């Protein structure tokens, strides 16, 4: 489980972020000792840091620069300043991404996911799922010699569910992921895509891989 460190001085934001990240399959920790922030960060050794620019004792950018001398832990800067200059500055200090308050929680999760994937530095071409092979580049699912083509939308949905395998994924999350990939589909299209995905896997002998949780979302088994 990936460990995410929250560095933020607003108490409500801290506690709500913690809840949200824990619900999404991460282990969230909140930084409490701002006075020795750098030492505590290195001590906690998280997989990713959500760093607010306005924190007590030290400026977030300053902290980022100090951190970069010691470690390459991925950092997403969070700020309420919606300004390109600040963003460019933060990125030049070594931030991996930059998000402005107020952010959409689902989009924050997508960004965290993207940064973690990027820093893993693994470009995955194929996935083995049960006894199937999913070739992402070609957009096909293979079983022995049988092959079925997935559309771009179906592939996006499957990959997202696969990353969160075993967790409930809401329709909103799937929709956000699709729109984030420039596929601006509507609610009906999402339902159609999911049922098509199901039937395509069924043809290859994998029935009921995507379970529907009423009012909550879907789970890939």
């Amino acid at each position, binding site marked *: 489980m990936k460990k995410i460190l929250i560095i933020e001085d*607003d108490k*409500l*934001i801290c506690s*709500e*972020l913690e*809840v*949200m990240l824990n*619900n999404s399959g991460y282990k969230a920790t909140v930084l409490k000792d701002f006075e020795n922030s750098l030492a505590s960060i290195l001590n906690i050794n998280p997989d990713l840091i959500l760093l607010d620019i306005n924190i007590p004792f030290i400026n977030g950018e300053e902290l980022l620069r100090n951190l970069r001398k010691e470690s390459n832990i991925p950092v997403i800067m969070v700020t*309420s*300043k*919606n*300004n*390109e*200059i600040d*963003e*460019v500055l933060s990125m030049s200090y070594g931030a991996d991404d930059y998000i402005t*308050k*107020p*952010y*959409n*929680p*689902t*989009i924050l999760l997508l960004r965290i996911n993207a940064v973690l994937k990027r820093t893993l530095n693994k470009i995955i071409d194929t996935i083995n799922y049960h006894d199937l092979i999913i070739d992402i580049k070609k957009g096909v699912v293979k079983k022995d010699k049988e092959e079925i083509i997935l559309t771009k939308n179906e592939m996006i949905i499957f990959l997202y569910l696969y990353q969160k395998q075993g967790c409930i994924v809401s329709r*909103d999350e799937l*929709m*956000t992921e699709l*729109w*984030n990939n*420039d596929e*601006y589909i*509507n*609610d009906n299209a999402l339902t159609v895509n999911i049922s098509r995905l199901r039937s395509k896997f069924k043809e290859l002998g994998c029935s009921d891989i995507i379970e529907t949780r009423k009012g909550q979302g879907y789970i890939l088994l």
Partner: protein
Amino acid sequence: MKIGNYLKDKIFIISILLIVYFIILSFIIGFKINIQFKIIFSIIYLLMIIILFCYDYFRKYFFYKDMINKLKLLDEKYLLCELIKSPYFLEGKIFYDVLYEINKSMNENIIDYKEKINNFKDYIELWIHEVKIPLSALILYTHNKKVNKTILKEINRIDEYLEQILYYIRSENSNEDYIIKQVLLSKVIRDVMLKNKDILLEKNINVTIDLDNILVLTDIKWLEFMINQVISNSIKYVRNIKNREIKIKAYKNKDNIILEIYDNGIGIPKCDINKVFNKTFTGINGRKINSSTGMGLYIVNNLCKKLGHKVKIESDEGKYTKVLFYFDSNLFYREVC
């Protein structure tokens, strides 16, 4: 300074000099002095008067002519004092000194006001950033507690109004806090669409986007704000039909890259279309919807001017609205950067 006006101004002195001349002349005639002396006296006296007035006239003429010419050429007329020299004659000197003092005190006043406006602007910006913190907390809270979506919508409305005032300040202010870079249009559109995703889905608006990989030179945050204003108008002013749609495309022509945002909403009446960029103009459509402030497009137009883009709007009432952004496709910016 015309010679006629000058003489008119000096009429009192001239008449006294002439009276004196005739008095002396009458003495000369009365005492039966040599006629030649009379002629010589007349010539010397009149010549002296003419020389004196010419000297005085030209001295003033050159100073005032120079001043008026420079005043006409100047765009910022209050800088006049910096351009003219203090003259050699007394009245001019007094006049110049007074002008200089007035100018100085005015400049001090202006600096004072500028500082006040800047302080106010800084405070408002700071305040906006402060307000965004509790807003973030509220959004996270509603997300976790799965609170009714209407509350989230209202929070997002607050955020939109905050953005509007932030960019109003940025567009009115001479401080140039933007960065011109190459920006991928599809990225900006993606961020705007994600922001409006819920309401687009709720209102059943189909989105079609065709942008290829077109890059434009602009400030990404400002452009995002401008497009968001246009899209939220499209969302606000939908028609009561089944196939609502927003189509966004970009293409190049000879001089420009054009971003076109089309919607099949209620459109804009012909009598209003030329006024949509005016400040606080709401028009016939605005009266139908109570959340219209008449500021959105005004700010968009101002920001466009600052960035060197152009924005145009086309519409057929009851059919469609099309907003066109024109970006320079020449390399001017790239050379500057």
